[in-house]
Each structure stands twice: as C-alpha cells, then as structure tokens.
C-alpha cells in the first residue's frame, strides 16, 4: 500500500486552500466590486458582502469537518478519500489564486465552493458515517 506520499500531500493542499480562504476573508472588496454594476448602491454592496461572508464561513466549517476526519485519523489512510481531497483542494488553491489575482466576480466563488469545498467534505462525512456506523474499512 504505497500511500506514504499521499498523507502529507493531502495535508499541504488542505492548508494551501485554507490559507487562501483566510486571505479572501480579508480582501473581498475588489471581488465584490467586480460583480456589481458601475453605479452600485451601498445596500447592494452590503448584500453581496453578506453573501460572500456566508460562503466563506461555510467553507471554514467544511474545512473543520475535513480536518477532523483527516487529523483525527479517521480517514487519514483511506487512499480514495485522500485522492479526492488532494485533487479538490489543489484545484481550489489554483482557482482561488486566479480569483484573487484577476479579481473575479464574486458569484464565481460559489462554483469553487461547490466543487472544491462541499464535495470533499460531503465525501468525508459519508466515509465517517460509514466507518462509525457501518464498520466500513475495518
């Protein structure tokens, strides 16, 4: 079972994604302005700001789920989940870098959220439930 490189790779991609999400927390103005029309009102700005905040907070929640599953050892050595996680988070790290540098409109964040935060966290929850309740992987 040659999975000795997968565990640190998974960890590093999770951390990279996490760091970029934290950066977006602090620098979301430019992205919000990119998705509003030229003459935007403060209330429109606040609506979009709230949306982004909710999206980022839910992303952090999903990170917590995935880190509990990974660091707690529950899915640390399951190769398939590790592969899903590594691929999803590295894709997220790359796309979020573009998001930051090219000032993408804020709606596009939801696509990244769906594929690269929600999907691995969902698979993680499925695996955890499978291990806890159905003794899968024993």
């Amino acid at each position, binding site marked *: 079972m040659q999975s000795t490189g997968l565990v640190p790779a998974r960890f590093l991609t999770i*951390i990279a994604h996490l760091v970029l999400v934290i950066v977006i927390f602090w620098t979301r103005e430019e992205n919000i302005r990119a998705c509003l029309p030229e003459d935007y009102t403060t209330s429109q700005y606040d609506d979009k700001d709230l949306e982004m905040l909710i999206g980022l907070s839910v992303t952090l929640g999903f990170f917590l789920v995935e880190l509990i599953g990974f660091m707690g050892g529950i899915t640390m050595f399951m190769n398939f989940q590790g592969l899903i996680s590594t691929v999803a988070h590295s894709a997220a790290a790359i796309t979020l870098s573009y998001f930051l540098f090219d000032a993408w409109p804020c709606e596009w964040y939801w696509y990244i959220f769906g594929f690269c935060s929600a999907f691995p966290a969902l698979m993680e929850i499925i695996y955890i439930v499978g291990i806890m309740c159905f003794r899968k992987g024993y």
Partner: protein
Amino acid sequence: MDATFRRTMTSVTDLIFPVNRRKDELQHRIVPKNHEYVTNLPLQMALYFNTFFFPFWFIGCLVILELKWQRLDELYRIVLVAIYIVYFIIECIRLYLGYLGNLMERVPELAGSWLLTLLLSFPLIILLVANDNAVLLPFERALHIVMALFVVAEVILGYLAIRTMVDYQVTKYHLQQFSDMEQLEDNDYFPETRYTS
C-alpha cells in the same frame, strides 16, 4: 559537548517535571510491560506535519518580505530579517530534536526541543502574528496563524509527552534497580543514565 548537553537537559527536566513518587502509587504501577511505549502520537503528528509545512511557510515569508520591503521602517527591516533568520535555525533544530526525541523516547532531546519551542518559537511567532507595525499583509497573517497553531499545539503536547515519559522511565529505572541490584556497583551510578537512551 554531548555529555554536557545531556547533563543540562537532565537537570532542567528534573526541575520542571518533578516525579511525584509515593510508595503506594509505585507499587500499583509495578509492571511496565515490555512492549508498552510512551511515544506521544499527537505530538509526533504535529511535528511531522510541521516539518512539511515549514518550507512553504518560510518561502511565503520571504516573498512577502520582499514585497513589502519598501514600505517598512528601518527598524522593522532589521527586526524582521533577524527574526526570520533566527526562526529558521531554531525551527530546524527543534523539529529534528523533537521528532527524534519523541520517536526514540529520549527525554533530553525532547526536553531540549520543548524548551526551544516554549522560549524561542512561541514568542517569535506571537510577535509575527500580532505586530501590526510591520505592515502585516493578509497572506502573511494567514500563514503565521497556521504556524502559531502548530507551535501552541507542540508546547501543550510536548509538556504532556515529557511528563508521561519521565514518569514511565523513572519508574522503570527504579524497578530495574531492584531487579539487578547485585550487578550495580556504586561508582557506575551516573544521574543521566536514569533516562534510558
């Protein structure tokens, strides 16, 4: 120099982690089974992942430093360069000592690593995270937060690991003393071999 290091670490460990030895407690824990180990798993994991994270943290710090060099005062240029150099050296030493000490159950190395973490890495990383005068950019702040979480975890887990290890090894030595007392001569008793290594 190795012997001096061991002696120093042993005396420091005795000071900070005294073994509370009561007669009845020792008698209840009379048998340390031979296959039992006292390597602390969470600490080992923290050190392992910290080793992987550290190069990326350092590269990120250098890039950010280069980007904000123009905006920094003279003072903070010097201070930040000094902090990064010291942190690099200290981190390499403490990660190596901690990894080895925890895995091989060697208390002097682990105690040295824990002291370095507590006395040097902890204040430096707190300074890096919380000092707004040094033009703290969001990316840098995120990196330092992750590193600070690692350092705090290692301080707490290191304390628990050393305490468990010291108790276990002193108990084992104490019992070993009784089992082969005939072979133990007086001039062979060195305090630092109390920690089997």
